[in-house]
């Protein structure tokens, strides 16, 4: 295997050190690979992609669930110096279009089930661009020869990630080879993961949480990665028990569901040494229930698409249950007032950080627009929080309006844009309403144009959302109001809508 920079070099080092040890357990396919076998699969996939004109800097969309093909295709991109663009396999083609509008991909790799719809969409929406669509499983058929060497340098593009925007359009950004390697190094150095560890990957690999804390963490350290294509309680418990999982990155919904499941007490989960949630605030109730059920404490990690993981709580004490912990190695963090001055311990402000893993800016935005979020090497998260005297970070809210639901961030404006297209909708506001488990549920408050049948309109709006949006963005609650409450200055009074 050729080294090069970034994740490709980390993979080469792990293969050299731990070649015959287990690398990947694909729970969905029942397939197991050692690091040597994984490296061989990555080389073959890299040769196949090179044969399809994917080279350094070229973008490739990866629209796959948590399976061997995701891992092999992502690592083959790193091997070639290409730009991996992982996308949610549950996306509708309309969502694929919105995400890929600003990121011209040369190819799209997807599943056999989705390929026909994606190909039909690409033939229309991407006509003339020469974008190919291929089924992952057949990509390597008949491939001979080898891929060209990995380009050197840490500045080349490695990952195209997305953050929810404030306009209904997702904001794209490039992260470099050096930035991805730095993210993996930070996790490795901070958490102390090693080749004896087994990481369970139930969280989606296309998302920053799964990519960084499951896949990159495994490649950097040589820990085995156990993948499950979707969260099911019995399969997850069986994987923890059967594979002797030691590290479990998860989301609050999954943790709450497992902790509530009484038969989980019968599973042997004694191998777990580090369990942590990200993506949404962890309720104290979930922390307590998890501790009672599984013994090992449930911790929180704080991160974002722009930089991967930023902080993690590795404390043993219950006192910091609601903290997301301290910065990972190499990351500087500050909570600041609006004027940029630092807050005192306990004082609330905006969370900002400087990280060698952070992107340098959003794609397609002017330097002035980017300077609002990225100034002097510091990223302004838009999240609100405070530090305690020991430097533990507590996230208390968001200045941005995203809704956290089942481990995903939902941009309310994207949902509003879809609902507003219905001719009977005069006005709509989408908010996050408190769910019963500390999560939020997507709620649409709609003003309609005097239709006689609310129930029929609700049905039609949900059908419209389901056709246009991934299932986690479809509102749970559709409420009808005579008007949207606004302040005298016209600002929507969201607190009266939840």
């Amino acid at each position, binding site marked *: 295997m050729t080294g090069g920079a970034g994740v490709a070099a980390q993979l080469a080092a792990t293969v050299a050190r731990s070649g015959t040890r287990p690398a990947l357990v694909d729970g969905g396919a029942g397939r197991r690979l050692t690091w040597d076998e994984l490296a061989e699969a990555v080389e073959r996939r890299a040769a196949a992609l090179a044969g399809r004109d994917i080279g350094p800097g070229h973008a490739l969309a990866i629209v796959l669930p948590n399976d061997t093909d995701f891992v092999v295709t992502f690592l083959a991109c790193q091997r070639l110096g290409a730009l991996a663009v992982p996308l949610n396999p549950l996306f509708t083609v309309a969502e694929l279009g919105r995400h890929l509008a600003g990121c011209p991909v040369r190819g799209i790799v997807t599943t056999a089930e989705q390929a026909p719809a994606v190909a039909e969409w690409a033939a229309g929406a991407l006509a003339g661009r020469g974008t190919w669509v291929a089924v992952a499983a057949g990509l390597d058929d008949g491939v001979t020869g080898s891929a060209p060497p990995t380009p050197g340098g840490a500045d080349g593009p490695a990952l195209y990630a997305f953050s929810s925007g404030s306009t209904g359009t997702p904001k794209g950004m490039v992260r470099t080879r050096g930035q991805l390697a730095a993210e993996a190094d930070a996790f490795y150095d901070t958490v102390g993961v090693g080749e004896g560890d087994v990481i369970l990957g139930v969280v989606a690999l296309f998302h920053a949480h799964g990519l960084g804390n499951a896949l990159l963490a495994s490649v950097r350290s040589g820990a085995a990665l156990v993948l499950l294509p979707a969260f099911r309680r019995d399969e997850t418990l069986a994987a923890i028990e059967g594979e002797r999982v030691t590290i479990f990155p998860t989301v609050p919904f999954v943790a709450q569901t497992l902790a509530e499941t009484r038969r989980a007490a019968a599973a042997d989960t004694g191998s777990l040494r580090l369990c942590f949630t990200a993506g949404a605030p962890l309720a104290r109730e979930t922390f307590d229930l998890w501790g009672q059920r599984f013994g090992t404490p449930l911790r929180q990690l704080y991160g974002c698409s722009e930089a991967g993981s930023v902080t993690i709580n590795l404390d043993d004490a219950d006192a910091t249950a609601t903290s997301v912990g301290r910065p990972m190695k190499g990351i500087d963090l500050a909570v600041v007032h609006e004027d940029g001055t630092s807050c005192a311990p306990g004082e609330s402000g905006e969370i900002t950080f400087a990280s060698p893993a952070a992107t340098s800016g959003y794609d397609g935005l002017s330097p002035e627009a980017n300077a609002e979020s990225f100034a002097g090497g510091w990223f302004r998260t838009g999240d609100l929080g405070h530090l305690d005297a020991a430097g533990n970070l507590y996230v208390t809210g968001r200045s941005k309006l995203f809704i956290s639901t089942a481990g995903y961030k939902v941009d309310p404006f994207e949902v509003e844009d879809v609902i507003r297209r219905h001719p009977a909708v005069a006005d709509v506001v989408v908010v996050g309403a408190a769910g019963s*488990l500390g999560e939020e*549920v997507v709620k649409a408050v709609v003003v309609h144009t005097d239709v006689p049948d609310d129930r029929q309109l609700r049905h039609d709006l949900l059908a419209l959302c389901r056709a246009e949006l991934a299932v986690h963005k479809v509102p749970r609650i559709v409420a009808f109001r005579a008007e949207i409450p606004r302040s005298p200055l016209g600002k929507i009074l969201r607190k009266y809508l939840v």
Partner: protein
Amino acid sequence: MDERLAAIDSGVRTLLAERLRVDPEDVPADDDASLLDLGLDSTAILSLVTGIEDRYDVEIPDKEITLDNFGSLRAICRYLGGLVP
């Protein structure tokens, strides 16, 4: 519907409201109406299932969490009717 199934029906309606925040007025009187039409996805249905396990002291294997068993109130009542004494 017999008394026992009516009680299950009412209990599940309460869970929909309390746990999933579905407005009781939105839950169709028609037990055959699809729960997907209420905006419930697979995570919501899983959350409903853990609520049912807790309320009725039953264990529901994940492989039985299908639309056939959980796609409508009637399906849930029929399924639970076989589990709940």
